[in-house]
């Protein structure tokens, strides 16, 4: 499903974020990206939804070449990918239901359908009782649930998460992981960059460790492997 061939990313300031990375991820996999801060995890994640374009090499997603992709095709790509952020990226002046439905509204989905799908997805993440609340009135875990709901409302084939539990306490983090686990069970590929050692060790999923822009380790049912 995802393929990276000899991908190198050098930022304009000269920082080498990724060096000659080769990677293949199949449909339905659950993959942890681990490694020290600044190792290139976030850059790799950003390549997948084309927030960044590699300096050299090719990135393919579902047979589509993301490097040669034209600018106006990018929105179409992003509609097939759900993205979850460490800082949630919710709009403060929109309610829970508006924030979630946003992802459908920008695609021109009729209001009725937006309503129905938003309710069902908020039900799934356990927020059906707080649809009228604003993000500021929610706890961190609840905000992240809204973010997850927004990411999966389009039934994406791929869910990308950049440190989704980074701002949450361990218990709330596990609630989010349960959500991601269930989403993955239903066939969505999940790629998650994280520093959460306990989560990685207990989930026993594929672990890809990145150090200084290179893949240092790639194990099925792996462990976090870093002592902090």
């Amino acid at each position, binding site marked *: 499903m995802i393929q990276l061939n000899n991908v190198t990313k050098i930022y304009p300031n000269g920082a080498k974020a990724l060096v000659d990375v080769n990677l293949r991820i199949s449909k339905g996999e659950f993959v942890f990206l681990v490694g020290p801060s600044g190792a290139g995890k976030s850059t790799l994640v950003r390549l997948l939804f084309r927030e960044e374009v590699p300096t050299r090499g090719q990135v393919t997603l579902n047979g589509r070449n993301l490097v040669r992709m034209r600018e106006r095709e990018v929105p179409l790509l992003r509609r097939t990918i759900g993205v979850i952020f460490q800082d949630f990226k919710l709009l403060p002046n929109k309610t829970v239901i508006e924030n979630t439905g946003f992802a459908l509204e920008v*695609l*021109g989905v009729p209001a009725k359908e937006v309503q129905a799908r938003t309710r069902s997805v908020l039900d799934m993440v356990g927020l059906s009782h707080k649809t009228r609340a604003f993000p500021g009135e929610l706890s961190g875990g609840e905000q992240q649930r809204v973010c997850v709901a927004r990411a999966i409302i389009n039934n994406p084939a791929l869910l990308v998460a950049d440190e989704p539990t980074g701002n949450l306490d361990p218990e709330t983090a596990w609630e989010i992981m349960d959500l991601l686990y269930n989403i993955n069970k239903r066939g969505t590929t999940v790629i998650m960059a994280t520093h959460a050692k306990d989560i990685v060790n207990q989930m026993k999923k594929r672990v890809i460790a990145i150090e200084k822009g290179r893949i240092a380790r790639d194990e099925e049912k792996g462990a976090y492997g870093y002592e902090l």
Partner: protein
Amino acid sequence: MKRKGLTGMSFSSAQYILRETLNSLKRNPWLSVASIVTVMVSLVILGFSAFFLANASNMANMFESQVEIAAFAQTNLSQSEVLALEDRIKSMPQVASVELVTKDQALLEFGQSLGGKKGDLLSDLGGTNPLPDKLTVKANDPQEVAGLAAELTKLPGLETVSYGQGVVDKLLPFTRWLRWLGAVVVGAFTVASLVLISINIKMNVFSRRREIQIMKLVGASNWFIRWPFLVEGLILGWVGGILAALIVGLGYRWLADYVQMTLAFLPMVQNSALFWQVLFGLIFAGMAIGAVGSAFSLRKFLRV
């Protein structure tokens, strides 16, 4: 999802865009007011400089149209020779018009101005008319007056050719300067208003950059993001344009009346077609500036 073409428009999208526009106007009422005032002030200045340009150019035209060449025929020419001379001058390419005042007419007018009766003056002068036939020549372009006068001097049958050399030589640089000044004023204020307005729109876009970023990340097309800003810019520009047109329209009317009463020798342009053109131009310019300015300021933020 099916594709909705380049602009990403459908009925629900149009609804969304309208709602977003209204929300944004409600959410930042002071930014909206600031934008309207900026557009208004810029357009008021622009409108008045347009009228200044029109008046400057009108005044220059008027001064220049008064420049004419007086050519006097030799007194021994017959009536038909004078008429032939007139035709010859008319056929010259630089000539706009020729007006012939025959010696008889001139004598008549002269006599009337002295208060005498017809024929009296002629007999007093001993039966001969000392006045020459006069040809008043106007050039197509006032700049060519000097050259034309020189050419006329060479024509056989013409005696004296004069065009008020001193006045023309001073007047022409002045009118040229007047037109330039008008154009420079309009140009400078156009640039200034564009800068002011684009700063304002950038603030608006900047205050919503987070929203734009999220829209990009969930796969909104660029046009879908652009539309609410365009509509908002259009509305703000339209309101600003109307206010500016009111101020400029009423202001110019008042100014024109005032000048007419106090400085009657200073002609103000009172062309109502031009008047409405400028006012509607202001409204249209407001809308265009608002919409184009929004789209332009967005470009940077759409590259996510």
